[in-house]
């Protein structure tokens, strides 16, 4: 018999299982069950017919193979899993690999891409998927079910010629390779990798095998910020030399559970990194994305949400047409473009279409002109399957204007006059700009505030990592500070989006906010803001 599942994971994605657990527990507090006149002691329950537990799904294969990521063979200095709060609803079951394989195989049996349904998620902490002894077998079984690209995040320690060759047989495959440094000594120190050359040497092998990959770097100031930036530059150059699809720079942060001490000055490290990346972009052909992208946008862009190009994928239709960093897209196939999400949506449609050409109106240094993109003219590292926007790289997703229309509908439905809108440090400037440009709201009072992230603490300030208790604490403080009570509180849904059941990262339902503060709370449907 296999192990019990962790109910914390289920509560986040499929709270009906937690519901059953609590119902049974409340009943068993007052009755005993019996069979043939004898009391039956029960200590658990199981799901009866798995077909009843199918949920709507985009059937991305990652939904299955991430269950291979229960362990890690690195010990990264910056590993965010080390800083997870104890009450985070992401348990780690630590089951035997064979049992994990049984679960993945069953999930594959109930993985129905055509019907767009699969078994509910129940993921815990995710580490390194590629070290699982059955990982490649899981991918093989998945490939029989779906032609979708396998997007695999890996530290690269397993990327031997043999593994790369087997991955090549499972295309389309795209790797997010956490290289972090092309220097063996720095990678060893940073990641606890005793054989750093395997990952470093994998870049030319991936290119040879035709597997596109992003090089992922967490710039962590081990010795000094200067040394960190020099290494970042060297790693980007190495990635460019081997035709990386793009470089992703994940700005570092840590929670209070990771360290009670201040490890570095966040603004110093983040602003120096972004400045250095912007300098590197002018010197390299490889696109470099900084995450979270809105940090860069807030620092450098007066006007937010513009469809400005920060780079292009080498050998892509965009690169072939001569599109470059700094270009702003004004028009796509004759349709006027007002915002970055709109540009991304249209390019995504073109990417998936059978069209042979696309026509862009472009502004470059005050000059406007037309460009024609040949959608059939491309080669590695660009690919039709794994790219999304014809090779154009933007500064994140941007903010959809439709969110404002939805906000207006919510406010109208509550007949609210004074609204408290809870945003984040990163999104607030763009949201304020969109609000100021909108004519939807008249003289309605919308007070935009930013709650602190006490749950994670440390230097974590991402809005999507706020939990119910953070919102409650902030609103109570706000009500104490202000004499006028808002008649509606609106919160973007993204901190509650994991399982579509309005749960935060601890599994707590957002409805608890209005239960505790006594003011109606509405969620504004929105996706996470950055890629």
């Amino acid at each position, binding site marked *: 018999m*296999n192990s019990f599942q962790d109910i914390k994971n289920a509560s986040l994605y499929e709270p*009906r299982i937690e*519901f059953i657990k609590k119902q049974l527990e*409340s009943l068993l507090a007052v009755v005993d069950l019996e069979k043939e006149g004898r009391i039956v002691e029960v200590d*658990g*329950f199981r799901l009866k017919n798995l077909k009843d537990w199918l949920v709507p799904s985009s059937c991305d294969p990652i939904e299955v193979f991430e269950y291979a990521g229960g362990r890690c063979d690195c010990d990264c200095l910056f590993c965010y899993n080390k800083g997870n709060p104890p009450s985070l609803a992401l348990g780690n079951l630590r089951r035997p690999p064979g049992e994990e394989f049984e679960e993945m195989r069953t999930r594959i049996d109930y993985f129905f891409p055509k019907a767009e349904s699969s078994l509910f998620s129940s993921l815990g902490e995710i580490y390194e998927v590629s070290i699982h002894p059955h990982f490649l077998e899981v991918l093989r079984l998945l490939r029989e079910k779906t032609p979708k690209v396998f997007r695999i995040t890996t530290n690269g320690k397993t990327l031997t010629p043999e593994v790369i060759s087997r991955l090549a047989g499972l295309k389309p495959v795209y790797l997010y390779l956490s290289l972090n440094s092309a220097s063996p000594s720095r990678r060893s120190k940073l990641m606890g990798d005793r054989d750093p050359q395997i990952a470093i040497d994998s870049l030319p092998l991936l290119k040879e095998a035709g597997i596109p990959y992003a090089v992922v770097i967490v710039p962590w100031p081990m010795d000094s910020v200067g040394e960190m930036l020099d290494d970042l530059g060297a790693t980007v150059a190495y990635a460019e030399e081997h035709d990386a699809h793009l470089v992703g720079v994940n700005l570092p942060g840590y929670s209070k559970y990771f360290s009670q001490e201040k490890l570095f000055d966040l603004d110093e490290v983040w602003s120096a990194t972004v400045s250095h990346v912007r300098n590197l972009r002018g010197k390299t052909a490889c696109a470099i994305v900084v995450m979270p992208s809105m940090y860069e946008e807030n620092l450098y862009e007066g006007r937010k949400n513009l469809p400005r190009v920060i780079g292009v994928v080498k050998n892509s239709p965009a690169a072939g047409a001569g599109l470059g960093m700094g270009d702003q897209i004004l028009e796509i196939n004759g349709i006027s473009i007002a915002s970055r999400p709109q540009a991304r949506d249209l390019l995504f449609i073109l990417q998936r279409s059978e069209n042979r050409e696309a026509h862009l109106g472009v502004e470059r240094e005050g000059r406007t002109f037309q460009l024609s993109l040949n959608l059939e003219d491309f080669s590695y590292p660009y690919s039709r399957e794994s790219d999304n926007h014809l090779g154009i790289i933007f500064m994140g997703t941007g903010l959809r204007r439709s969110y404002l229309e939805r906000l207006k509908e919510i406010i109208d439905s509550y007949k609210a006059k004074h609204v408290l809108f809870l945003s984040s440090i990163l999104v607030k400037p763009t949201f304020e700009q969109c609000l100021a440009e909108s004519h939807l709201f008249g003289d309605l009072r919308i007070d935009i505030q930013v709650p602190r992230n006490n749950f994670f603490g440390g230097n974590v300030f991402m809005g999507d990592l706020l939990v119910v208790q953070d919102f409650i604490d902030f609103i109570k403080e706000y009500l104490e500070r202000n004499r006028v009570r808002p008649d509606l509180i609106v919160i973007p849904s993204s901190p509650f989006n994991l399982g579509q059941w309005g749960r935060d990262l601890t599994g707590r339902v957002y*409805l608890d906010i209005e239960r505790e503060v*006594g*003011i109606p709370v509405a969620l504004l449907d929105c996706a996470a803001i950055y890629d």
Partner: protein
Amino acid sequence: MAKKEYVFRYKLEPKKEALYPDPLLEMIRAQLENILNLVIPLEGRREVKIDGFKLLRDRERVYKIFSKEQELGDFLQERYL
């Protein structure tokens, strides 16, 4: 060998926290809390937010559904209780 289907099993634990000492009252409260964390009740098409209940046998007493610290919101009391 026939392929085994993975069994999704979950552990039951003895119920620990109770808002009311009367176990049958607590059972009703816990079941209501549990369901209200999954659904929003409607009256017609209007959403109804509930934070308390009465027993049919004693309509004088009002019981809270959620935690003791729960603030019985004015908007909830006026509109729905």
